[in-house]
């Protein structure tokens, strides 16, 4: 489709949605204060219902989303069950108001309570909440809980530091910093993770908490994590396990058994809820009984046979976000966990790690690629960071170009790396448990093909994609205030100015 912007479609007076015209005889005064009356007509498009439908159907068809093969690392592409999707579209869920009396919400409270129990079993924690709107928001929840914990002890003015690894997901330092903590980043050392010595040097009576992922995005598992937790707790700090990379260890590890005080799961990735191009998502945050009093309210509890919302939490850190979370995603995660069962969850992590090692083997046979931390010979976890640096040096084709070109073959672009790029020209495939070996083989074959193209016809790759809805987007406007345009009105204004 060569689809215009919706702002360019339609004609004056066309309608896509009518509303009842109020009965003029109802005798009520509907006047607005003069100062607030809108006199201009908002510059919205005017279309029929069908035209709106057709336009957005076209746009959906112009989105590759999981229509091909996506081994998007750190995000654990999963099948998003339509069974649970349809269940959440039911009015029994979609048409609920969170302020309804809990006696009218027993079903949804039961599901959330049951998922809480499942996550407790997986992590060893004592209480989960679903208020956080994503993984980063769960990290922020940790920061807020830590603030409340230290404030309750009168030590917040002293406990002002958060220690993490430079390889931790950016949301950990960013949320801690936003919450007011000073961030200390530990560099990676030769083993692929920060040393225990560096941690010991970093933690002190100023440390409020540490926040870490394990394994990290390179696929490296920090085998000293037990000692880390011990060291941090000896310094009095709280320990938070960011389970963003849970897929490779689920069913295998218990955060609480490793000593952590809290952890978070991404229900929209690991637990099979769609992340829908960036939410609605849920960062399920769980913690020990010691931290539970500081959680954002409400807590879903069971009183006899009745589920209740416990709002009376005097030590609570306050709300992170309105209401109880993205409830449909919670239901989908519950459905995923029930559909998998303990056995399925264990099998999924087995498959994820086996499949990544299979990819490692096959990718290692393609010249032009390099595995991160080549000195580490141990098998990686559920993903591995790779580098296209050799290919780039040889051909000038970078990782962006390769990703764009792979899309031409029906391969959803890969994830490269979070900042900072510790590995040049990175890419991070993650096979997960969804994809068949055939899909993985296709992915590898396409990468090999593009590597070959990079050598033979580098311009073809550099100017990719050639087979997508649009050609390569020219990025120079994105940091140019005189040309960026985040709305049609801004674009029209700037275009007019440029012409003048």
């Amino acid at each position, binding site marked *: 489709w060569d689809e215009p912007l919706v702002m360019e479609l339609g004609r004056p007076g066309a309608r*896509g949605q009518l*509303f009842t*015209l109020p009965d003029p005889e109802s005798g009520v*005064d509907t006047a607005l204060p003069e100062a607030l009356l809108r006199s201009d007509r*908002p510059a*919205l498009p*005017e*279309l029929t219902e069908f035209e709106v*439908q057709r336009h957005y159907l076209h*746009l959906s068809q112009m*989105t590759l*989303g999981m229509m091909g093969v996506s081994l998007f690392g750190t*995000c654990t592409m999963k*099948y998003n*069950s*339509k069974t*649970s999707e349809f*269940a959440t579209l039911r009015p*029994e869920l979609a048409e609920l*108001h*969170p302020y309804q*009396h809990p006696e009218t919400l027993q079903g*949804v409270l039961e599901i959330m309570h049951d998922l809480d129990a499942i996550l407790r079993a997986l992590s*060893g924690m004592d209480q989960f909440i679903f208020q956080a709107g*994503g993984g980063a*928001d769960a990290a*922020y929840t940790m920061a*807020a809980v830590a603030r409340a914990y230290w*404030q309750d002890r009168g030590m917040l003015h002293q406990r002002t530091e958060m220690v993490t690894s430079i390889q931790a997901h950016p949301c950990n330092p960013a949320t801690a910093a936003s919450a007011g903590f000073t961030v200390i*980043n530990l560099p990676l050392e030769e083993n692929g993770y920060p040393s225990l010595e560096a941690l010991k040097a970093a933690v002190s009576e100023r440390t409020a908490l540490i926040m870490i992922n394990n394994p990290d995005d390179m696929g490296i*598992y920090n085998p000293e994590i037990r000692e880390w937790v011990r060291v941090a707790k000896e310094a009095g700090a709280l320990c938070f396990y960011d389970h963003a990379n849970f897929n490779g260890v689920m069913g*295998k*590890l*218990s955060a609480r058994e490793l000593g952590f005080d809290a952890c978070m799961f991404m229900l*929209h990735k690991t637990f099979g809820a769609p992340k829908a191009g960036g*939410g*609605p998502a849920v960062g399920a945050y769980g913690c020990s009984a010691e931290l539970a009093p500081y959680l954002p309210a409400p807590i879903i509890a069971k009183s006899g046979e009745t589920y209740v919302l416990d709002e009376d939490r005097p030590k609570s850190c306050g709300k992170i*976000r309105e209401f109880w*979370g993205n409830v449909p995603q919670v*239901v989908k995660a519950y459905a995923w966990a029930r*559909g998998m*069962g303990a056995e*399925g969850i264990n*099998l999924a992590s087995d*498959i994820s*790690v*086996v*499949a990544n090692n299979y990819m490692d*083997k096959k990718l290692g046979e393609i010249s032009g690629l390099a595995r991160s931390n080549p000195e580490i010979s141990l098998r*990686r976890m559920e993903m591995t960071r790779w580098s296209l640096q050799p290919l780039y040096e040889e051909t000038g084709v970078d990782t962006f170009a390769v990703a764009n070109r792979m*899309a031409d073959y029906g391969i959803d672009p890969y994830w490269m790396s979070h900042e900072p790029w510790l590995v040049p020209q990175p890419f991070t495939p993650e096979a997960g448990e969804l994809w068949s070996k055939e899909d993985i083989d296709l992915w590898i074959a396409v990468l090999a093909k593009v590597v070959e193209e990079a050598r033979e016809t580098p311009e073809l790759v550099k100017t990719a994609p050639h087979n*997508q809805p649009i050609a*390569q987007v020219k990025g120079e406007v994105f940091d140019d*205030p005189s040309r960026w*345009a*985040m*709305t*049609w*009105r*801004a674009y029209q204004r700037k275009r007019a100015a440029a012409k003048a």
Partner: protein
Amino acid sequence: MAASVRAHPWMGSSAPGVIEDMLREIGAASVAEVFEQIPQDHFRKSLLNLPPQLGSEIELKRDLLSKLKKNKSCEDNLNFLGAGVWQHHVPAIVDEIIGRTEFATNVWGSYQSDHGRNQAWFEFASQLGALLNLDVVQLPVYSWGCAIGHAARMAARLTGRRKILVPQFMDPERLSVLHSYCQPLELAGAIEIICLANSTHTGQIDLADLIAKLGPDVAAVYFENPAYLGNFEANAAEIARLARAAGAETIVGVDPLSLGIVKAPGDYGADIVTGPVQPLGVHMNCGGGVGGFIATRDEERYVREYNGFLVSIAETLTPGQFGFGLASSHQNSYGSREHGKDWTGNSTYLWAIAGAVYMSLLGPEGFAELGRLILARARLAEKLLAEIEGVEILWPASGFKEFVVRFDGTGQTVAEINARLRAKGIFGGKDLSGEGLGFGQSALFCVTEIHTTTDLLRLADTLKEVLK
């Protein structure tokens, strides 16, 4: 047992023999071997005690539905709850589009492979910008409360000041979120939240109090229009003028559904505008439908303070073709970690698509019609309730879709009244009695376009019966 050898429909490599094939390729003797990085004593000792697998779609569906059917929905009951999540009509086309698997899936690709979705996002921002008369609209953050939090922090960074003034009659739910974003004061970068007095006669901000508190340390004044308790802020322009004069930013929260009839905030001096995304075509979802927008003028000082995703139109390598990408993205936490502007992550971007579809279905006339209808229905509800003995409307005919009903004259508590209404299939307004507003036994009722005149008569009749 037989069940364990069946492939699982959600796992491509669970078919018999596939793992073995891959292990053979790898040269590993067992699955355990690929976990060699994990020290033995890290593996969990406790049994993983989960409820039994619902191994078939039949069982799973039945389990989900049997639980969900225990809920009582606002489709089968007559609902007057609002206050942060509102029951508006969701056009069928919206549900169709956001339910398309191309969108409702785990995708994150490139500017090219996600072009359709990116265009829908740009159309969300463009249409919302047209309603707001503002040029920059960010993709939605987690919620309106979170949007206010980010806006406050933007204002603090823009002005270098550390106080924000908010109305005393602010939604405690949103206020609590704002607290989380601004405080506690023990830590660096905290922002002090100071309440402005509201008139108990009109609900509006007391301008004298505003003038008194608008010192050189104030980063921003925040108010909502319509406000938490439903009333419009008729002095909006004056508040913005005063704030500007004091060097403070004006942050406004608006209901986008009011903007077909109510002046655009960009036209009365708002610097940063926030609001809820849920009314724009998203089901209430038990509170899981919320999202918040942030918008400003297209000035670099504002743009450089956004925390999330700004989708800009751009050219492509094909002359005349347009595409989309993220503007100014190095400043977010993905680009700058702890040095970024606040933080971002997965948010509520699917609702941006819902909003784009919703706004293009309505168009300018639809928004005007909708605004007039809501106003007429809400005012009719006020009128019908005011006729009931002992029932009083706090500030009649002063707002949009919400209004405060006082029940002190009835001798019953809101809790009692709501319980009786509930038994008759009506969800009464939000109980304000415990919020310390000074309005006794009062409730915040919400009336929208989904309420028919018959519904309102039913409410009034049932209420009369219940109060007898």
